[in-house]
């Protein structure tokens, strides 16, 4: 029987998004995860990103099942299905007026680039839970790392793990090089028995003229170790109740700004 992501999340765990949230703003982490505060709204970027993500996943699931690209409507149906789910939520979506148009444009760019040459899909939204060792003491942490790999494809002699993003602009070289999520996925893929995988970032930019940027990258042992050090550091800070606020230009888009007092 396959364990679902929801079942994996039932145990004490940490995710890459949780780590990223803490690094962005420890106070926001406290509001969201520790106190379980209700957000004031859902940011449109989150809704659009999730819906586009589902559109891509639907495309690859179909490729995996049939070996061929589906019609574009398969992506659109998944996109709109997710959007409707968010709209049914009692929380308002902030700045979400043109999400449909933006989403359609992003999916079109994606579809037109990939449909002619569909990859050899091995897995879509592959759930994982792995033990995390403290890189200094070797001690296994209480929290397991839980998440899902967006896409795993087979290319020639090796597997490639793809991460899908929507972003306001193109990712910088440093972002691509230092993103901890990809370091985590390299480590995860090895534990899942996929061997030494290639890493790929597929970014759909929400620019006036949407673009899809595909970057192949890699991670070293040192990157993996640094990721573990970051996770351990974040978990220790959480244990020590270190939840200071980071006041910056992101506060306006934070769904806890009223309670945090940043308004």
């Amino acid at each position, binding site marked *: 029987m396959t364990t679902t992501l929801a079942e994996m999340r039932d*145990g004490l765990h940490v995710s890459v998004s949780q780590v990223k949230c803490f690094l962005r703003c420890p106070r926001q982490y406290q509001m969201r995860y520790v106190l379980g505060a209700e957000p004031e709204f859902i940011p449109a970027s989150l809704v659009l990103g999730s819906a586009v993500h589902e559109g891509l996943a639907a495309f690859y699931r179909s490729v995996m099942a049939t070996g061929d690209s589906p019609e574009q409507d398969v992506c659109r149906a998944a996109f709109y299905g997710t959007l409707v789910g968010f709209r049914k939520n009692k929380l308002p979506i902030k700045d979400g007026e043109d999400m449909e148009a933006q989403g359609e444009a992003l999916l079109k760019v994606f579809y037109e680039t990939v449909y002619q040459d569909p990859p050899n899909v091995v897995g879509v939204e592959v759930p994982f839970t792995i033990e995390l060792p403290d890189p200094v003491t070797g001690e296994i942490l209480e929290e397991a790392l839980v998440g899902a790999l967006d896409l795993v494809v087979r290319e020639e002699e090796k597997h490639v793990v793809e991460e899908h993003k929507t972003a306001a602009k193109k990712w910088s070289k440093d972002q691509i090089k230092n993103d901890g999520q990809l370091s985590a996925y390299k480590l995860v893929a090895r534990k899942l028995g996929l061997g030494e995988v290639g890493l790929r970032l597929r970014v759909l930019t929400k620019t006036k003229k949407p673009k899809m940027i595909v970057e192949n990258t890699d991670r070293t042992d040192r990157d993996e170790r640094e990721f573990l050090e970051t996770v351990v550091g974040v978990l*220790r800070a959480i244990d020590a109740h270190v939840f200071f606020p980071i006041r910056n230009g992101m506060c306006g888009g934070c769904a806890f700004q009223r309670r945090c007092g940043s308004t």
Partner: protein
Amino acid sequence: MKKEIIQILKRPFAQELIKHRQGHNGKQLDYVAVQHYVDRLNEGFDHDWSFELTRREVIGDQILVEVKLTAAGLIKTGIGGTAITRGADNKTVLSLADDIKMAEADALKRACRLLGIGGELYATEQDDDAGIISSPPPSVPAQHRAAPHSLPPSPLPPRERLTSAQLKGIKDRAKAQNLDPAEVRKQIKTVYGVEMEYLTKRQASDVITGLDANKPTNGKNGQQAWAG
């Protein structure tokens, strides 16, 4: 402590789990891998126990650690240690992480003995004449071990947040009592002000005690601390 728990803890380890090694004065020492001590704790306390590292020191060529084992309201302290493993040049530290793990395992075993686990091994395993070294040798050949670390890690404050076993213990008990998981979560949040996953060990222990008291007795519920 309940008689049944004491019986579980004091039950001798099966012969096939007992391994042997050579002591410093040539005599054979018996030992059992730390995992079997952990298994026995889980069996005896239904996963509801925890241990904290309260001290870690490097003294000369020795790593000394102290752990605090908490179970069923009892606290037992164990001190353990091991020698730092060095390469053929007698200088390079091969893997401090592995050495620390061995010292921690040693300390946990000693704390376990105070609860009665592995008492039958006491005479042979504990008192190796060399002093504090009593853990089994590393199973991985030294030349294949991880890269050295140049500095010993700094001592850390003991973890306060609940353990994965405690979280599971809460969820399992709620399920066994047919309590609505959402209601249990809500009640924890109301009482402690945090999500279930961020309780402290002590708070989690209180929740578990409350849930245990909630178990139906003679057809009636206990203290009704938890509703569902």
